[in-house]
């Protein structure tokens, strides 16, 4: 199947999934999602005020009409304004994406680089004490809750030792990257690196068992060369896919770090929106993240094909 046809087919397949996401979120949050009118109306509001606000927000219209509006919003990409602050939803997400990525990308790069290096090392010395020690250490590392890492890390490294600022964010890219993002990224790595090491180790071990590795060794290639060139090239396929597919989840998953370090990211925004029943933001977040997830999967498949042409696109 050629690439174009494949792309069209995959993109087409996204439509029903998206529809499912939209329906699920719409009904769940409409059914049980709370009524923002009671917050917006303030402390002395009477039922007429509440009705007025509900009318303005459009939540007194029939469900199907609201659903239609939602679908139109997805098609046009315009989710209107936040109910809590009147700010355009798109502006909110634009301003949140930067800080989220600032945490996410260094974390992903460091995590992948470290995890691949460690995975190759332990695979090279598989079964040895080093392997066991590293694996045990990484298991212990990931068994501690992120909440504990953050509470203790912020207290010890930022407050007691003063190596990092306790919290904060600025408008300056480099200052954020080199000052404010460092501690959160490192703390995030403490929990995220171990599972990757363990997973990549199995990918590497899978490859080491293959015939071509034995052939390469038989040709007299050095173990280092075998590992770095032959094994890594093939193990890279599942690794790359894994990294890509993990990205969208990270976008919303860093909310603990964002809250404790006062970083204006997407995860924190979503929690705030849920607390305030700010439905336009919830809708937009769902759609954006779902879209990102599906595109990441597609990209993963394409990369898979590109790295290993034997894999057929289907």
């Amino acid at each position, binding site marked *: 199947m050629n690439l174009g046809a494949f792309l069209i087919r995959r993109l087409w397949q996204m439509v029903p999934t998206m529809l499912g996401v939209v329906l699920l*979120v719409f009904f769940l949050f409409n059914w049980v999602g709370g009524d923002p009118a009671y917050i917006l109306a303030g402390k002395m509001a009477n039922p007429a005020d509440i009705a007025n606000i509900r009318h303005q927000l459009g939540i007194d219209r029939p469900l199907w009409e609201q659903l239609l509006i939602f679908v139109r919003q997805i098609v046009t990409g315009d989710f209107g304004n936040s109910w809590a602050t009147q700010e355009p939803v798109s502006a909110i997400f634009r301003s949140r994406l930067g800080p989220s990525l600032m945490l996410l990308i260094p974390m992903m790069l460091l995590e992948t680089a470290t995890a691949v290096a460690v995975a190759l090392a332990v695979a090279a010395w598989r079964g040895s004490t080093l392997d066991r020690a590293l694996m045990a250490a990484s298991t212990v590392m990931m068994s501690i809750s992120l909440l504990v890492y953050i509470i203790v890390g912020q207290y010890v490294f930022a407050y007691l030792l003063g190596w990092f600022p306790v919290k904060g964010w600025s408008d300056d890219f480099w200052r954020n990257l080199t000052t404010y993002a460092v501690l959160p990224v490192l703390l995030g790595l403490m929990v995220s690196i171990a599972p990757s090491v363990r997973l990549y180790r199995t990918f590497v071990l899978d490859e080491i068992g293959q015939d071509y590795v034995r052939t390469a060794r038989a040709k007299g290639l050095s173990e280092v060369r075998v590992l770095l060139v032959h094994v890594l090239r093939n193990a890279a396929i599942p690794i790359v896919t894994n990294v890509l597919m993990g990205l969208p989840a990270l976008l919303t998953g860093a909310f603990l770090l964002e809250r404790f370090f006062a970083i204006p990211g997407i995860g924190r925004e979503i929690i705030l929106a849920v607390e305030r029943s700010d439905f336009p933001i919830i809708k937009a977040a769902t759609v954006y993240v779902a879209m990102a997830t599906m595109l990441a999967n597609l990209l993963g498949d394409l990369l898979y094909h590109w790295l290993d042409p034997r894999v057929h696109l289907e």
Partner: protein
Amino acid sequence: MPPNASPGLWTLAWRRLKRDRVGMISLAVVVAYLCMVFLAFGGWIAKDWTREVGVNYAPPVFLPDDQDPTAVALVKPVAQPDQVDLYGLQDPLARQLAQIRAHDPVGAQQPIVARRLTLPLGGDKWGHDVLTKVIKGSETSILVGLVAAILATALGTLMGALAGYFGRWVDDSFNWLYGVFTAIPYLLLIFAIAAVLQQKGVSTIILILGLTGWTGVFRLVRAEYLKHKSREYVLAAGAMGASHARRMFIHILPNTSHVILVQLSQNVVGFIKSEVILSFLGFGVPVDVVSWGSMLNEAQNELILGKWWQLAAAGTAMAILVTAFSLLTDALRDALDPKLKY
């Protein structure tokens, strides 16, 4: 069993596992925890964790005594119910109160219960014994992890089996469901499901975790079924008239059980950790139940107050179990998957 019959998958796996020292130690730790859970569940230990046995924030016994004098619990006698000015109003309960006073004057001294100044692992803000809380908390956390993992794994297995075995539209629809669940941001999925399950309690946490955690199992089990359904033994069973259900669950299932078991134990670990985050978001256990998650969230503010013992106790107890469980999972995977040779 004839003496020369070749040993089955499980026997072989057990033999391999027995040779794995780390695996065996982990197994021992996990079993020890499970025994603790069993004892706590049966009410033999840590039953009275709600009793306030120590002073507020009683330090652990091994700490040098640096009690802040303000931290010692003050036990005040009950105030005497004086006659207060009613500003000319009539008390609707005047008759009842008069009767009570006539029979038995209120205001006798309440027994003052002596509270301990130190506790084995310290006390929390109410003076609950942290050691007892950790034990009782393990019961909740481990049960939540186990039951939710079983639920998620069962759901994932069932759907994966149906999808992989029947293929076509069945497969398409389950894949669609899988796509939807993985595309929705996890955070929002949690909020949404929590909102639907109005009643709060341990069962809500289990359902949240179970209903969001099935996707990984589904993907793997489906792949296994795709692989197995055209194998000879399944085709043969079909030729002999075995029903679909029989082929799926009697013939194929045992051959995918190693995948399922590994997924199950991975989920247990993941869910025990997720419970902490759910507590942070306010979807934790109710107040009459204690879990590691509720303890860690309670202890959040205690660290900088210098009352680190609850954080340390719950954090350590959890770390040990999760480490042991993860190492056991590794050992199991190695033992069950003969393809991976060291």
